[in-house]
């Protein structure tokens, strides 16, 4: 295994992670809700859910974050891999998978692990494993 030292950002990633943890804490302590992005979006897509306003406002805050950021400093780089076909396939799998699995990197990864939830530990292990395996196949076996 080789480490990508030039791109490794331990301090800003740790600080960013703490900010994410703070945000998840604020949402649960003040609103009593889990900051799981796939769950929040999913419940906005279904009828008859309570707390729609609060959920929508959380997502709005997330949506406008780069605009706030851009007022003070330039945005960090955003580089994509692959074309539109790969993005569509990936988006569909992420959409279906997070709803069946009841969560994503935020709900299971951040909030679930913080709650020491066994379900979230299993879910996080599963999506990490298939994420590692998929990148291995895409980059090193297919060579895309």
């Amino acid at each position, binding site marked *: 295994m*080789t480490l*990508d030292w030039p791109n490794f950002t*331990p301090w*800003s*990633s740790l600080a*960013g*992670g703490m*900010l*994410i*943890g*703070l945000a*998840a*804490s*604020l*949402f*649960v*302590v*003040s609103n*009593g*809700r*889990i*900051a799981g*992005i796939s769950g929040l*979006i999913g419940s906005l897509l279904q009828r008859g859910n309570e707390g729609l306003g*609060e959920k929508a*406002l*959380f997502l*709005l*805050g*997330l*949506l406008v*974050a*780069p605009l706030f*950021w851009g007022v003070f400093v330039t945005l*960090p780089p955003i580089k*994509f891999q692959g074309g539109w076909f*790969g*993005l*569509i396939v*990936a988006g*569909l799998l992420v*959409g*279906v*998978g997070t709803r*069946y*699995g*009841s969560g994503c990197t935020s709900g*299971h990864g951040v909030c679930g692990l913080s*709650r020491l*939830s066994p*379900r979230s530990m299993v*879910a996080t292990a599963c*999506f990490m494993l*298939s994420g*590692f*395996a*998929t*990148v291995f196949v*895409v*980059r090193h076996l297919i060579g895309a």
Partner: protein
Amino acid sequence: MRKLTAFLAGLLFGLGLLLAGMTNPRKVLAFLDLAGAWDPSLALVMIGAVGTAIGPLAWARRQTHSLLGNPMQLPVKRELDPRLVGGSLVFGIGWGIAGICPGPAVAILLTGHWQAMVFILAMLAGMLLFSALETRRWMPFSP
């Protein structure tokens, strides 16, 4: 007040993702690429996030209501069912293809990249597909 804290929490969450570098799909993929030049940054994001949230969430578990009076809505499900495992495995495949998960997908939507728009539309379609399949599944039981 609850609306304000909801908005602030979302905003902080997005700023955290940006600061952490997690809005860059290439950086996320570099974490998932164990056989290539590996960038462990995402592990530090998780450590920072969980280390910060573990105390407040432990507090929340013992409460019936939030500080602003909402009922505490923490997941109650305990069983490790095939849906959890299968869904999470499928999510990981999509995550591994594009390097984008739902949080960053929303956070990069307004940065002017067409790829973000394509991804999120597909993701919403996937979620709607789930809802449609679930509705069908429960149809025989509804009046």
